[in-house]
């Protein structure tokens, strides 16, 4: 039952996750896999407080890989959040089984080009996306559950061109 959503979102825990996905999936646990956040007691506490009523676990990538299959067999739905595609690819290459990766929020930064209002990718991001596709991960673009989910291949012609 466990994994209900694997999501790339540079805001990590925020309104769309807590309110929209939280209401839709009713997660028991949210795993934030992020080396920087896991290294800071203060950041871990902040993220834990941001989702009232849900157990929030903040772990480094190595720990995220270690717990992934164990959590997959756990009771109740769980969400996994990473802030970037580098971390998502590290998880999958490290052995995490991810069938579908939700691309929910990578906002503008210099060097990135627009895919839609909440998804901007640079050349390295696109290379990571291609690698994830090669590894059998479906890449779905969707910010909130009420929006239509679309394949990245459909909305970003640059991915298919390479």
């Amino acid at each position: 039952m466990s994994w209900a959503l694997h999501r790339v979102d540079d805001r990590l825990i925020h309104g769309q996750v807590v309110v929209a996905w939280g209401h839709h999936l009713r997660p028991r646990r949210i795993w934030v896999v992020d080396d920087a956040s896991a290294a800071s007691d203060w950041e871990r506490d902040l993220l834990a407080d941001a989702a009232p009523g849900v157990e929030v676990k903040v772990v480094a990538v190595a720990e995220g890989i270690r717990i992934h299959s164990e959590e997959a067999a756990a009771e109740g739905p769980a969400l996994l959040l990473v802030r970037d595609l580098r971390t998502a690819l590290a998880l999958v290459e490290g052995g995490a089984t991810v069938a579908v990766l939700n691309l929910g929020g990578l906002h503008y930064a210099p060097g990135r080009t627009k895919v839609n209002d909440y998804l901007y990718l640079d050349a390295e991001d696109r290379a990571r996306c291609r690698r994830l596709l090669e590894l059998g991960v479906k890449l779905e673009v969707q910010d909130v559950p009420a929006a239509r989910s679309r394949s990245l291949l459909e909305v970003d012609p640059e991915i298919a061109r390479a």
Partner: protein
Amino acid sequence: MNRVPALLVMHSDLGQALLRAAAAVYGPVEGIEVLSNDGLSREALERQIAGKVEGWTHGGLLLTDFWGGSCHVCGVSATRGHGDIVVVTGLNLPTLLDYLHNRDQYGSLELADRLQKKGRESIRLHHGQPV
């Protein structure tokens, strides 16, 4: 008493809309800045908030919409270490009006407590009467 400064950090154009609504009741409003989280990553929003509160040497209030949203989370991160800046979530029009009426009478910590109470009191139920 120094005036307590405030920054509205909210989703979409809610901050601007609340300020317009407040002006319709209170009169012209000055001295409040507004920031939307639209299109901003966590780092970018934190940077923008930090830039706005940089000069708040006597504290201030970050007025945000809901607990757990990026406006709240980034507000807490950006104001870390500023003991007299308080992040207030769940802002509504009565709370904003109360801030405007009292920002010259209280310090930031006392004013934040007052706004929390005002916000809670402002949500009331008025049931319809049976015919």
